[in-house]
């Protein structure tokens, strides 16, 4: 219906909204490649707690990040009802484990408000801003910071 071209993005953004632990978040739809149900992951040795492991995504190995744990919430005990949002930033693909996907939002850039100071240190560094939509507050997640720095330091080159 809404036909969004890439050059329109500055004014009109489409966002995927999802829920983690009762709060709502969203990411830019342009970086979302796929949304799939939870499948058991293969755990990786010596990985941080928020890395759930890896899954087979059509022949490539996709790390799955528990976004709740990443944002400093309690880590998720995934069930079949949980959802993995497959995102891509640059050349890197990463799956984000969330509770449920709720909505697609179309907003303009000026609707994005700065993150309030009350948010925790950890949460603030992943949030690009907040949106007020129909009385709900939805936090916009910046994927760059979520995807970066999660592998073992010293091996990123």
């Amino acid at each position, binding site marked *: 219906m809404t036909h969004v071209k890439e050059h329109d993005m500055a004014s009109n953004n489409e966002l995927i909204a999802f829920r983690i632990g009762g709060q709502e978040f969203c990411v830019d739809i342009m970086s979302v490649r796929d949304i799939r149900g939870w499948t*058991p*992951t*293969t*755990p*990786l*040795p*010596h*990985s941080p707690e928020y*890395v759930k*492991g*890896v*899954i*087979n995504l059509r*022949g*490539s*190995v*996709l*790390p799955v990040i528990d976004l709740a744990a990443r944002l400093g919430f309690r880590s998720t005990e995934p069930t079949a009802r949980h959802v993995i949002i497959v995102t891509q930033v640059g*050349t*890197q*693909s*990463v799956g984000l484990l969330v509770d449920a996907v709720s909505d697609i939002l179309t907003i303009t850039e000026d609707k994005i408000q700065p993150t309030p100071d009350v948010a925790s240190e950890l949460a603030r560094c992943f949030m690009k801003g907040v949106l007020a939509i129909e009385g709900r507050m939805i936090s916009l997640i910046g994927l760059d910071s979520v995807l970066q720095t*999660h*592998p*073992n*330091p*010293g*091996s*990123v*080159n």
Partner: protein
Amino acid sequence: MDTMAAIKQTFFQECEEQLAELETGLLSIESGESDHDTVNAVFRAVHSIKGGAGAFGLDELVRFAHTFETALDLVRSGQIEADAPLVRLMLKSSDTLADLVRVSRDGGEMDQQRVSQLHDELTQVANPGAAPAADPEPESVAEASLPDAFAGEPAGEADENGFVPLQVSFDGFLDSDADLEPAAADNIFRVWFRPKPELYAKANDAAKILREICSLGEADVACDASEVPLLSELDPEGAYLSWTIRLVSGVSEDAVREVFEFVEFDCDFKVEQEMPADPGFSFEPEPVASVAEEPALPVEAGVEEAVIPQKIMDRIAEVAAKQTTAAKPAAGSQAAPSQQSQTIRVDLDRVDRLIDLVGELVINQSMLAQRVTEAGIARLSEVAVGLDDLEQLTREIQDSVMAIRAQPVRPIFQRMSRVVREVADMTGKSVRLVTEGESCEVDKTVIERLADPLTHMIRNAIDHGLESPEDRVRTGKPEQGVVRLTAAHRSGRVIIEVADDGAGINRERVVEKAVSKGLIDPNIQLSDGEIDDLIFHPGFSTASAVSDVSGRGVGMDVVKSSIQALGGRISIASRPGAGTTFTMSLPLTLAVLDGMVVNVAGQTLVVPLTAIVETLQPKESDVHGLGETSRVVSMRGAFLPLIDVGYELGYRETETDPLNSVAIMVETENRAQSALLVDHIVGQQQVVIKSLEANYGHVFGVAAATILGDGQVAVIVDVDAVVAGKRTDPARTDIANRKRNAA
């Protein structure tokens, strides 16, 4: 336009090959293993580059190639000897030629000073009498040097003359059979003549001069139009053509020179008495020469220089096209008949697509095999037998596809010889590079990504490894240092070594440095090997002064991580006074490996088969405690450390009971053996390696990931890392831990 661009691209690809041939040839001349064919091949390589460059109007490249060719021709004809300094100069020139090609292709700036200096040196070689300082037109090195080389020629001694005509002159070799050559009565002259614009401005006519020469005897006139620019850049009053005349005549050389009496200041010309053609040498007609066969060109068209018909430009493009297709077979068949094989150029993307598909096929095939087993179909049933055949075929397809990507390491080794020359120059050390095993084949990607680490290690070896010549002499070593670069296949991997015969690692300094940087505890006792390993620590650099050569802000840790990223390992061995050896072990391909699928703490893991020696069920009598936590298993009289993979990788909190486990004996890169404990063995299977680094990063103890037949991801164990992480030596684990923590 697109065709032109495509032709040009082909030309540059050909150039790369010619340059490689050039360097190979020069190196074998340097090592004294050359024969006449080698010299010819070297000459031809430069000649082809020049010819092609001419067709594309790459003037700078043509000029340099021409001078280079001139000097090479003298070597070829035996007029000068290819002694060590000359070969060095030629190697430098070949480097510069490569740079010029690259600049022509990619744009960028050339070190003009270096080009012109080499240019002068080459000119000097071509004509020892000439002093480059005497250049009448210093602003244009190439133009100046030609008449200059001529001016310095001792009159009458044509043999010493450093002149080689432009490529068209090889018609001379072709047209005249050596046997039919007039014995003595007639002199053969090669006359080269290039009018300057002034000649035309003074109402002289090149055609008249050519006719006059022709009147002296039997003359073959060939016109070189390679310097003609594009029509849009053409100066209507410029002079772009030159001629080469092969004259058979009874007159003396002076008589020929007389022809130019009235124009001698308005043109560049040379007259040279030709050597008898070398019967052992025959030259292929190169398409550039065919310009001369264009009947319209030689005299009439050339005189009216201001008007260059589009026809010529088209023709040049055509020639270039022909040359690119013709040059390769010619070079291949003449230079090395043994290497003759047909090749096609294939876009790498297509090969990679094929490899990906075959990878999926392998996964699919093993998935099918698993399903068949699960369905309870008998092993001897036709389905199972057919499946075995399919597996065989899949493997063969995979091997063949992998072979497409496999490339010999030769090109990269050759590139290193240039690094050696440059660093040796910079540091003032005398270095010889010895290479072995250049024909070892490795995956193209491995080779490409090896270039930077190798360059860095070679730089290091020369800059830090080798002592100064004085120090070497003082310690009784030969003044010339040796850097040895070798490649060999060993148990499914390729081992590349960079060894120098320098002073070895100064362990005291390393420790001092590590302590001062807070990398290690000053009280800790480290073995020699551990001290050597410290240089791989991030931020470690032993050179007290950051030198221009190897101090570029990257250390051996970067080398190590780039090798690791390739699924490789690097180790160091050093003996004081005798030198240092870096050993890299790399996978042959980045795509598949044979693995043993095992189960550990509920996880499915893959252990590379190449590392496995044998498996066994430990008996109680074989297992011994060693110290507080370590255990060993005795096997045929040897005690091997027992390593619980599940515990090491953090899959379980406590170490497992060896008696309920299977021990897999593995051999690591340094040939030490250990026993890995796993819960049970599932089977053996070929797995497709999937990168974990692409989307995640390097994980300690994990080499890569793979997708098993059931679609699940399994990690491939990095045996060396697991073993090294758990060496029974406490200091060792200490370092490993600290390294991990520090990182």
